[in-house]
């Protein structure tokens, strides 16, 4: 790795990448399952209100759930078929969330795209299309894209950043998108640049994806955007895919505590989101499909699957030959920020970036010891916080005291817990403290 490559300044860790073999596998289309259960909460904010009733016929791409006001995004049907009921489905973070069960009609014609000349459209009309298509952050957070594209009044944005970092181990969904749908990524960047009314666009990619960097450079040239969209190779370091860290790495600007990227003139969108925006705006296709990396030594065959929201994780795994006996843990998302789940009865959402089936060799279980004050978590924290003090206070039940060590600035990347030699679950202590302080007010 070249030492001249840029990265963010504070903290960070280097977990083993384990990107092979998924990174070398072309995106594979998952055959349609027998049933979809589409969660009405696939985004930050309130669940969408269902717009369909049991027994109703739905068309592929039809809006089946909408959020009237506040934070949220519309949900669309992944198939043509019949609504078999309004039900609930587990969500790894929120328990049971409302969902719409749909039985697909195998005879139905596939979605017919409506190509549109977006360059002739006004920025606000493009934004309306993005909102109507229910596009959310595809990197994992699921933040509604149309809200992120409207910075609070008074803030000026001068830089758009496309996030192709994919710093979590195992995951390769974004990598494959950048390789196989390079032109769409670049078109998405152009559309988003127009919505924001900015000239400068950067695509940040870590240097462990040289093929993606080369492909993007060629596609930018082909689109005649050389010089206006710049592809930036970055040194490999976790958590560079976090907004604030990526902005620091690419522009040297530091987002103030509690601030938004727009406070330093930036808006960041994942490359997967760029593709979803391209599909929504240029093809009129709502957001109901995404690439999911299925990896880990516990799955019979790793793959990058193009699947539709509402597909059961069990379907994905079964398609790949099932779970191997050695698997001990299933994680939705990346190994650092994803959440372990107790069964495969979860549904793919717009924000599901990966399904990891891990063996005992790949996981860490067992107890933890007392803090030895080595300070490694202080060095690892990309936000410059003090996880060790938070954990000590939280362990003694003094939750109110944890706030002064930066509790609310933590975005739970897990670097502290990763480096702790005493195996202290530092980020879990932080999450528990946040829960307690939120509940007590």
């Amino acid at each position, binding site marked *: 790795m070249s030492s001249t490559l840029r990265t963010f300044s504070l903290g960070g860790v280097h977990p083993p990448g384990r990107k092979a073999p998924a990174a070398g596998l072309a995106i594979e289309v998952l055959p349609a399952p027998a049933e979809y259960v589409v969660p009405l909460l696939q985004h930050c904010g309130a669940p969408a209100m269902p717009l369909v009733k049991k027994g109703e016929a739905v068309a592929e791409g039809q809006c089946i759930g909408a959020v009237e006001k506040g934070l949220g995004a519309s949900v669309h049907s992944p198939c043509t078929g019949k609504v078999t009921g309004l039900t609930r489905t587990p969500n790894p973070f929120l328990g049971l969330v409302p969902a719409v069960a749909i039985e697909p009609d195998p005879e139905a014609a596939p979605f017919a795209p409506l190509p549109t000349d977006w360059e002739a459209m006004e920025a606000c009309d493009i934004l309306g299309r993005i909102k109507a298509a229910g596009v959310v952050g595809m990197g994992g957070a699921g933040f509604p894209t149309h809200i992120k594209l409207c910075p609070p009044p008074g803030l000026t944005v001068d830089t758009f950043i496309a996030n192709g970092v994919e710093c979590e181990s195992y995951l390769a969904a974004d990598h494959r998108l950048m390789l196989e749908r390079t032109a769409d990524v670049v078109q998405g960047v152009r559309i988003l640049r127009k919505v924001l009314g900015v000239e400068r666009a950067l695509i940040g990619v870590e240097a462990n994806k040289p093929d993606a960097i080369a492909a993007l450079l060629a596609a930018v040239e082909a689109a005649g955007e050389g010089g206006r969209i710049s592809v930036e190779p970055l040194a490999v370091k976790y958590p560079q895919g976090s907004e604030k860290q990526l902005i620091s790495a690419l522009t040297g600007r530091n987002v103030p505590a509690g601030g938004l990227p727009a406070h330093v003139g930036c808006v960041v969108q994942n490359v997967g989101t760029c593709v979803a925006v391209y599909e929504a705006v240029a093809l009129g296709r709502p957001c109901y499909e995404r690439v999911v990396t299925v990896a880990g030594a516990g799955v019979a065959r790793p793959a990058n699957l193009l699947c539709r929201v509402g597909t059961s994780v069990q379907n994905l795994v079964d398609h790949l030959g099932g779970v191997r006996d050695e698997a001990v843990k299933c994680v939705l998302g990346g190994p650092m920020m994803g959440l372990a789940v107790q*069964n495969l009865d979860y549904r793919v959402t717009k924000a599901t970036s990966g399904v990891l089936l891990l063996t005992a060799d790949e996981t860490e279980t067992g107890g933890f010891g007392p803090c030895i004050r080595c300070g490694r978590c202080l060095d690892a924290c990309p936000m410059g916080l003090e996880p060790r003090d938070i954990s000590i206070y939280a362990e003694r039940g003094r939750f109110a005291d944890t706030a002064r060590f930066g509790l609310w600035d933590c975005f739970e990347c897990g670097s502290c817990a990763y480096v702790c030699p005493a195996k202290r679950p530092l980020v879990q202590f932080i999450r528990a403290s946040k829960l307690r302080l939120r509940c007590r007010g």
Partner: protein
Amino acid sequence: MDLTQLAWTGLAVFGALGLLAGVALALAAVRCRVEVNPKIEAVKHALMGANCGGCAYPGCEAYAEALVNDPAVPPDLCRPGGPEVALAVARITGKELGSAQPIMAVRRCVKDEGQVAAELAYSGIPTCLAASLAHGGPDACRYACIGLGDCVASCPFGAMHLEGGMVRIDPEACTGCGNCVRACPKAILELVPRAARVLTHCSSRDKGKEVTSVCQAGCIACGMCVKKCPANAISMEAGRIKIDHDACLAHGPACEEVCAESCPRSILRRTGQAAPPAKAPQPAAEAQQTQEA
């Protein structure tokens, strides 16, 4: 200078210093005197001195001060003290004694009776708060007692202990201070009047079908008790039963606890009523996957 002379000199010097300091302190005590209402001291002595915080003041002294200085503060907030202390405090402060009854904490979960299965093998931070972050807790029921004892650690009176993966409350030792209610991340502990006639033993907010799929004992929210109660003391609040014990006690025993009689799951019971006889165990539950969160 011989030793005797040295001793006398020392005695004289330190004696004089002591006298000086004594006079200075006596003067300071008169000049800088802070008026303290003697009632505060008296009230403080009347309180239990456990500093449990059940009155919502930071310790007994703070409550005593508030009692004397603020006429709006009621005299019956000392949970461990109960009616006797309330009476003593009311006498000292000359306040009206309200009709507050002694209260106690009860657990609204019978996951042992309901044979709720553990769904995941939790191996993280051993507190209920941290375990509740992983899918709401390790049990199949999201409202079940996690059993890692956050409440036990918070109880200043040793009235709680863990047994069989659940908390047990000793009603004799419980003073109703409410620390456990605040510590429980699942909100399954509740303060009720000791005289309460009926209690419900489930906290679930799920629909009946979801409850029966994970628990053989839980409340299915059928609303039978709500319909039957002649005092309108039972209501459904955010998906679970709420009993207005004041209204229930005011109505009195004429209804013969028709709510408990009519409960098809026997989860709403007369206070002190034993659990119904256990049903035959279900046919082999499917093997649970054990995974860490």
